């Protein structure tokens, strides 16, 4: 499933819910599948600067793909991380870099987030695209060798 297809699947899921509250609650529900990071992985380098609640994101370039793992501390962060990792994790850096994050609005939930939470999303995306650019450069260097 491409990133766009994953977004479309989430749009279908969110469309099932009759009210904004139900959609937000579904984000919390997704957070039940949230994974955690080892304590030593939660450091300054992985800290997502600008998130409303503390969150960390690990990005590793493996076999030509960017592997993302994260941990959030609030229910909302856990849910959003689970959702976003489903879209961004295990993709090639080129896939991520050519994906327009504005497409996330198609899910119909970004606009339901409070301004503070929207900032958190921006902070997350900034971190993801940083990892993707770094991974892309690593791959280019490796290919030139």
């Amino acid at each position, binding site marked *: 499933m491409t990133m766009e297809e994953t977004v479309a699947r989430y749009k279908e*899921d969110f469309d099932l819910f*009759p*009210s904004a509250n139900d959609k937000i609650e*579904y984000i919390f529900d997704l957070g039940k599948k949230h994974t955690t990071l080892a304590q030593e992985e939660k450091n300054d380098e992985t800290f997502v600067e600008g998130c409303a609640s503390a969150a960390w994101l690990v990005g590793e370039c493996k076999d030509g793909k960017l592997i993302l793992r994260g941990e959030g501390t609030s229910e909302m962060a856990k849910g959003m991380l689970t959702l976003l990792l489903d879209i961004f994790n295990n993709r090639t850096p080129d896939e991520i870099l050519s994906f327009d994050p504005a497409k996330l609005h198609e899910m119909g939930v970004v606009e339901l987030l409070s301004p503070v939470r929207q900032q958190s999303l921006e902070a997350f995306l900034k971190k993801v695209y940083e990892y993707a650019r770094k991974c892309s450069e690593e791959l280019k260097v490796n290919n030139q060798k």
Partner: protein
Amino acid sequence: MSKSSNNEKVLEIKDVHAKIGNKEILKGLNLDLEPGKVHAIMGPNGAGKSTLSKTIVGHYDIEMTGGDILYKGKSIKDWEPEERALEGIFLSFQHPVEIPGVNNAYFLRTALNAKRKHEGKEELNAAEFLRTMKQHLEELGMKSDMISRSLNEGFSGGEKKRNEILQMLILEPDVIILDEIDSGLDIDALRAVSEGINRMKDGKRAFLVITHYSRILDYIKPDYIHVLKEGRVIKTAGPELVARLEETGYDSIEEVQ
């Protein structure tokens, strides 16, 4: 009737005596249900039809004073109602209860996930559940606002009964007891409810249809008709018995000892 448990019988009701308050209602009732079969229970008012359904599910109104009930070969007479439900026994209420403030979809998802957990299956998330629920709502001709309304609150008689069938379709029970599911239904609702029930007829589930009227049996074809009178099954026959009952009434039926 065999005294030993039989795998072909999903439910065995053995010489059951039960009372409500001080009044004995069931007086040595015997009945076996087999998977894939539809058993209709008919009988005059006060014969014990609803008491029978309540006794099977362990309703708190009932005190079972004798006999035994085996479900899949195990005695369930000491099981709590919720254990019976989790194991796959379902009763659609004659008068479904209204619970204001409890969202219908939440209620159903909680019930389904409790059953799935009991069966060692993964719980469904809200989107997975709603997808299933919407499909069933469409099939039952129910409006999608059933998702956000409170359980049975302000529902019409037909909506309440359809909602009972919705619960049945979602929970996929093995023993399905329908206590006067046809009462208060207009012809469209009766057809929708019957179609829902018929969709569950996959050869694996047993049905106990309790009714006063033969009308629903035109839609849900029974394999057996049991006539209940004064707390006992006094006659068991094939579906041909319905026509005779319609013609001559319950008084014409003599107990077969």
